[in-house]
């Protein structure tokens, strides 16, 4: 790349900044990747042990990229349930992503739709939570889309490699080690530092209680109900603490 023209230099500097943001995002997710790897491996094993042939399990992992929806749909697929039932199960299990998508929207609204579609597809529980924590702790660089892309890239590669490993080596990996609990622990590590204020604590408590009560509901609807209840509780406590409406408080 020649940088004799000023415009080329500016473009080159921009590309360098975006690359740096991407790499910084890649680094930010590394510690949590152990959790993603454990969860990916366990999902892969579960797909094959659940009765899906290896090539189909690989295709599903690569295209669907949503562990909980894949595992929820698996028994229906094996039982030969109608297509719409399986897709509806996937949609309902994935409902929490609609909330995530709404939360990400203000950060990426300025981007072209192709880029928004791409970032959305690679968003998961891990990458979304990591991004939102970064926004709250002020660690995001100017090119936050590149940072998020870095987070998503490492998470995707790790999840896919471990899912494929799980699928191919399903009969050799013992499932009774409790490996999948590493995924839960990584989520605890991800959420723990955010439990530092009353609204977050109230929201987490409400979410946990409702999710426990609603757990018998099908399609992981208990999770969605818990998340909604928690968000409402957190917002109420937040509004109560703030006194005036948040809009006024921010305007002041």
């Amino acid at each position, binding site marked *: 790349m020649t940088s004799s023209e000023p415009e080329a230099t500016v473009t080159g500097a921009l590309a360098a900044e975006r690359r740096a943001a991407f790499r910084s995002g890649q680094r930010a997710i590394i510690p949590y990747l152990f959790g993603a790897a454990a969860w990916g491996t366990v999902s892969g094993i579960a797909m094959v042990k659940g009765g899906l042939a290896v090539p189909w399990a690989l295709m599903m992992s690569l295209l669907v990229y949503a562990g909980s929806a894949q595992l929820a749909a698996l028994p229906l697929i094996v039982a030969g349930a109608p297509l719409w039932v399986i897709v509806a199960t996937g949609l309902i299990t994935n409902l929490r992503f609609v909330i995530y998508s709404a939360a990400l929207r203000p950060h990426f609204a300025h981007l072209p739709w192709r880029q928004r579609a791409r970032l959305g597809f690679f968003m998961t529980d891990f990458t979304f939570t990591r991004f939102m924590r970064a926004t709250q702790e002020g660690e995001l660089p100017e090119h936050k889309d590149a940072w998020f892309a870095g987070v998503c890239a490492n998470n995707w590669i790790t999840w896919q490699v471990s899912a494929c490993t799980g699928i191919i080596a399903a009969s050799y990996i013992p499932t009774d080690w409790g490996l999948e609990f590493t995924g839960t*622990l990584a989520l605890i590590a991800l959420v723990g530092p955010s439990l530092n204020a009353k609204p977050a604590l109230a929201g987490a408590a409400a979410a946990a209680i409702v999710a426990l009560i609603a757990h018998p509901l099908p399609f992981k609807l208990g999770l969605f109900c818990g998340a909604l209840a928690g968000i409402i509780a957190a917002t109420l406590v937040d509004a109560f603490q703030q006194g005036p409406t948040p809009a006024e408080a921010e305007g002041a």
Partner: protein
Amino acid sequence: MNDPVAGIALAIVIVGLALSTFVTRTSFLLAGARFKLGHRVEVALRYAPVCTLAAIIVPDVLIHPPGHAIDWSLLNPRLIGALAAGLWLCWSRNILGCLAFGMAGYTLARLYL
């Protein structure tokens, strides 16, 4: 699964599931870009990660395997592992330590309790 018709049906199911992921994950990022959510909604969404993760983690720890009764007892290895991880996080932000400590608590409780 060697039956080509079954193969095509399965491929369609997988593509349908992939669409269910894509549609939910990009819903507001694509369609919602046209209208602006109110400030209150944006404040509320800041609590989405904490609340969703609490709704994932707590049943995962207390109800295992899924569908069983809630196990509050301190003999529950997952509860011990989660408490160990939580204690670690109060003391340090080191994530690998948290995973190692939590897995150690969980595994020891599973093997010896």
